[in-house]
C-alpha cells in the first residue's frame, strides 16, 4: 500500500446565497485518484484556483472529502481519532512566512508542534535543536521571529514541521514570497530533507522547482490533467500550453535551439556542443 492513497476524492464547498441559504458550489476537487509513495518527491503545478492547495489540505485532514477517501499510512482522514497521528506524520509548510509562526521567539515556535503532541520536555529540546540545525538556523534560535528575513522565517516554519518527526512534508508554494537568495536556500533544504527520506510534496508556480521532483502532477479546474516525470511533461508543449504553465528555462532553451530531447541538463548540452 502506498504511503498516501487518494481515491475518487471530491471536495465541494458550500456557497452562501444572498438570502443566507446554502447551496453546493463549484467542485474544488473533482474525482481525483492518486498514490504517493514513501520517500518520493512529487510536485503539484497548475493555475491559481486549479485545486492544488485544496488537494494539499486534504492530505492531512485540514479539509475532509465530500466524496471519496484519503488514507495516510493506512489511516483514513475521516477517522477523527487518528487525526493527530495523521497530522504528526504529514507536516505542512505554507506560503506566507509571517502567518504560520505562532511564538515570538524562534526556538519556542519550533517547539510548538512537539508540545502539542505531548512529547517529553527533554526530547522536545533535542528535536528542536536537531530541526534548527537541519535548516541551518540553530545560531538564531533565541532571536525574535519578526527580526528575520522572509527566507529565514520560512526555514523556521520548515523546522517547525521537521520537529514533529513527520514522514512527509507538504510545501504549499513555500518560495512564492521570497527573494532569489531565500528561494535558493529553501529549495536546497527541501531537496536535502527528501534525500534523507522524507516524502515530499511541493506545490509551486516555478517550473524549475517542479523539474527537481521525481514526478509532476498537473492540476486544472479541480482535476488531474496529467501525472508524469518532469522530462515527459516538459517535452509536451501542448500540455504546457493547456495547463497555463511554462517550460523550465533549460527545456525552453533546448526546444528553441532545436536540440534532441535526450539532453536533460547543462552538462549534457556541453557534451553535445563539444562533439
Amino acid at each position, binding site marked *: 500500500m502506498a504511503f498516501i492513497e487518494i481515491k475518487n476524492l471530491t471536495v465541494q464547498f458550500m456557497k452562501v446565497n444572498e438570502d443566507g441559504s446554502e447551496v453546493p458550489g463549484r467542485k474544488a476537487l473533482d474525482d481525483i485518484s492518486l498514490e504517493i509513495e514513501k520517500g518520493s518527491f512529487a510536485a503539484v503545478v497548475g493555475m491559481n484556483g486549479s485545486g492544488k492547495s485544496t488537494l494539499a489540505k486534504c492530505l492531512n485532514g485540514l479539509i475532509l472529502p465530500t466524496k471519496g477517501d484519503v488514507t495516510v499510512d493506512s489511516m483514513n482522514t475521516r477517522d477523527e481519532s487518528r487525526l493527530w497521528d495523521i497530522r504528526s506524520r504529514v*507536516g505542512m509548510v505554507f506560503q506566507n512566512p509571517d502567518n504560520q509562526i505562532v511564538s515570538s521567539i524562534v526556538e519556542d515556535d519550533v517547539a510548538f508542534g512537539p508540545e502539542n503532541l505531548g512529547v*517529553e520536555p527533554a526530547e522536545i529540546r533535542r528535536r528542536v535543536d536537531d530541526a534548527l540545525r537541519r535548516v541551518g538556523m540553530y545560531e538564531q534560535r533565541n532571536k*525574535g521571529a*519578526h527580526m528575520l528575513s522572509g527566507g529565514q522565517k520560512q526555514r523556521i516554519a520548515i523546522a517547525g514541521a521537521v520537529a514533529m518527526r513527520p514522514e512527509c512534508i507538504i510545501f504549499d508554494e513555500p518560495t512564492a514570497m521570497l527573494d532569489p537568495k531565500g528561494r535558493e536556500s529553501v529549495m536546497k533544504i527541501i531537496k536535502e530533507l527528501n534525500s534523507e527520506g522524507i516524502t515530499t510534496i511541493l506545490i509551486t508556480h516555478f517550473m524549475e522547482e517542479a523539474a527537481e521532483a521525481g514526478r509532476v502532477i498537473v492540476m486544472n479546474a479541480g482535476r488531474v490533467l496529467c501525472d508524469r516525470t518532469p522530462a515527459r511533461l516538459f517535452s509536451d508543449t501542448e500540455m504546457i500550453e493547456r495547463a497555463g504553465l511554462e517550460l523550465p528555462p533549460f527545456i525552453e532553451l533546448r526546444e528553441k535551439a532545436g536540440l534532441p530531447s535526450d539532453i536533460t541538463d547543462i552538462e549534457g548540452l556541453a557534451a553535445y556542443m563539444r562533439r
Partner: protein
Amino acid sequence: MIRDITLGQYYPADSPVHRLDARVKITATMLYIVELFLVKNFAGFLIAAAALFAVIALSRVPLRFIFRGLTAVFLIIFFTLILNIFLTDGRVLWHWKFITITYEGVIRAAFMAIRLVLLIIGSSILTLTTKPIELTDGLEKLMSPLSKIGVPSHEIALMMTIALRFIPTLMEETDKIIKAQQARGADFESGNIIQRAKSLIPILVPLFISSFRIAQELALAMEARCYHGGKGRTRMNEIHFHRGDAVAAVLLIGFLAVIIASRQLGSVL
C-alpha cells in the same frame, strides 16, 4: 522603525534574573508596582530605585536598552510633570500672571515622574528578562487555580502569546495599507471630525480583511501542527521553582517590609 519597539521585547542573556521562575517575576513586578504607590517619601523611592538597579545589574541587560524603552513614553512623563507642577494648590513658590508654582506641586510632580519612570523600567525588566512564552506560561500557571471555576487559563495565555507575536506583523500591515491609500491620494489629516472618521474606512476595511486572512492562515497552520487545546500538551521548558526563586521570594518580602517601614519617615524626605 517598528522593529525597534522595546515594549514587550526580550533581551536574550544568561543571568540569575533570566533564570528566575516566570511566576516569581510576574508576582514580584506586580508587588513592585503596588509598592511604588505605597511609597510616601524620597527615602522610599531611593530604596525602590536601589533595589531596581540591583536587579538591572544582575540581569546583564545593557542600560541603553532599558532607557530606549523610556524614550517612547517620554511625552507622557513630561505632561505628568507639567500638569502636576501647575495644577496643584498649596504654598506659592513662584507666581507670574496666571501661572503659579507651588511647593506641593513641585513635590507631587517629582513623585509622579519618579513613580512613572520606576514603574516603566520595572515592568520592562520583566519583559526584557522573560521570554514571551515563559511570560504567558507563567501567567497560565498563576491563573490555573481559576480554571477550576471555569476561567480558560490556557486559552487566555495562548491568546497573549499570539497577540505578542502579531503586534509587529499587524503594525507593518497597517503601515503598508496607510501608505498604499496615501499613494492613491487619501488624506487623513484635513476636514472635520466626521470627514476624518470617514477617511479611515479605506484603511479599516483592508486591515479588517487582512487580519481575518492572517487569523485564518494562522489557525490552519496551528491545526496542521496538531494544536488541539491545552489538554495533553507538554512544554519544552517546564517552569520549575528553584532555590534561586526561593531566595528571590524572601528578598522580595524583605523589600516590601522596608518600603512599608519607610512610610514612617514622613511625607517628604
